């Protein structure tokens, strides 16, 4: 059985100021948890997007939950720019740590190994590096006049993601979404929502086992059907709710529009797709 009865119980486990790693919109963004964090009035969260984000980061930023974001990009993609993110960056209400996708993955890979850093190609000469005093350019000790960048291990307080299935032992199945495994391995603990329950032990089944994260990495799991809505979710081919994303893209252009969106869909828990 899931160890948390609902997403609000999951959100209650997140102290203000926590560092959360959060997957990109299409990989299993735990949107129901984001809504619960807004409802609980979370503050000063630090987000590390794996490696980019859209709806969830924009919403958390707009609701005043976020103090800092490390990201390779925040966008609503075909639905338009991430307005709350852009506004917060421009006004300086959040600290931005611009990154590039493979460097974010590398920060997780270092944390996953329990080593302080990993070296990375690329990046040298980019203004990203100039603005990241936590990334270092060094001379390759095995080479000859070969500059290379080191990125530090980033161990989030909580990896947050939406997965497909959980079994009674608390194992969760993420299928081919390997970045969710890396996210869980790298973080101190994981808070997970799942689409459905699996009747049996995921680790006993070879087809499932390869795509399963064992319970030892997980802090708590809550059942949240359509927990990525309005983002799409790969399990059972749930498409992006285009009408809802358009509605959000439009509402989030103004402070008033964004507030009424929160009132209706986050505090009011209205689910346009389900009703």
């Amino acid at each position, binding site marked *: 059985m899931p160890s948390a009865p609902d997403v609000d119980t999951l959100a209650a486990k997140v102290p203000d100021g926590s560092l959360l790693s959060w997957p990109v919109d299409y990989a299993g963004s735990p949107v129901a948890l984001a809504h619960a964090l807004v409802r609980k009035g979370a503050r000063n969260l630090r987000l590390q997007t794996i490696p980019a984000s859209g709806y969830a980061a924009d919403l958390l930023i707009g609701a005043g939950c976020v103090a800092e974001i490390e990201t390779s990009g925040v966008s609503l993609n075909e639905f338009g720019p991430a307005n709350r993110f852009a506004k917060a960056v421009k006004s300086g209400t959040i600290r931005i740590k611009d990154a590039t996708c493979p460097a974010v993955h590398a920060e997780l890979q270092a944390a996953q190994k329990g080593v302080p850093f990993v070296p990375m190609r690329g990046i040298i000469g*980019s203004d990203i590096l100039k603005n990241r005093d936590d990334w270092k350019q060094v001379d390759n000790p095995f080479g000859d006049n070969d500059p290379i960048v080191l990125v530090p291990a980033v161990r989030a307080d909580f990896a947050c993601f939406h997965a497909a299935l959980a079994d009674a032992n608390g194992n969760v199945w993420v299928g081919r979404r390997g970045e969710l495994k890396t996210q869980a391995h790298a973080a101190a603990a994981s808070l997970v929502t799942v689409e459905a329950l699996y009747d049996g032990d995921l680790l006993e089944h070879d087809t499932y086992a390869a795509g399963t994260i064992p319970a030892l990495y997980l802090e708590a799991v809550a059942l949240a059907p359509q927990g990525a809505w309005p983002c799409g979710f790969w399990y059972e081919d749930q498409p992006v709710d285009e009408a809802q994303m358009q509605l959000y893209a439009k509402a989030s252009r103004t402070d008033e529009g964004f507030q009424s969106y929160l009132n209706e869909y986050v505090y009011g828990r209205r689910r346009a797709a389900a009703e």
Partner: protein
Amino acid sequence: MSEDLGYHPRELLITSIARLAKGARHAAAGAQSPVPGSGLFLAQHWAEKSGGPRMQVTVLGSKKYYPFTDGGRELFDMAGQGRLDVFFLSGGQIDGHGNSNLVGIGDYPQVDVRFPGSFGSAYLFYVVPRVILFREEHTRRVFVDKVDFVSTPGTSPQNVYRPGGPVALITPLCLFSFDRNRGRFTLESIHAGHTLEEVLDNTGFDFDRPGTVPTTEPPSTEDLSVMRTMIAPKIADAYPKFAREMWGYEPKAAAS
């Protein structure tokens, strides 16, 4: 579809991209890239038709044409090993030295106009041998003398490990090649229906050009038919809206 040309302007862009991707073992198109993705499928078709080595096409956002099973890192790690020959990059601003800005306009970090972010550019632009710059807006707002923020530089000093970089820039008006040693673009051809004057008026950076600039080779009748019948269903896996609007393609429910 344009009555005068006999093809959609995007079909010319797709064909031009396919020519640049020829001979690749593995080519990939990133997020929000239906035109590049279609170009890669056309190049793949040519490779199959000529009986040459198989060309792997990877389309981010597709289920069927995205072969990775080990997470988001796999594409980048594999590219770092040299297993990816062709990739695409865009930019909110692109300058004449091949620098791309995906971060914003104004003083960083509190920029006046914020773009989404640099995504994989500050890595793939270094390690992928053939990076094609592609932007569907050709204006002085985009093509500037100097970018406000270098998400990724067009060239690097000699001692920086850099097997990759830009080779070309394709826009709705024309095709430029990029010389990595000189860090400059050269105008290679102008698309039918457009003029040199138009290119000069709308480009904010200095570039080289031959005395007479050729017209971009149009897509052949056969290539147009291939795009409309064979490429449409493939690109629809990641971009159903694009396939519908470009080619009126509707996936058959029974086929999935």
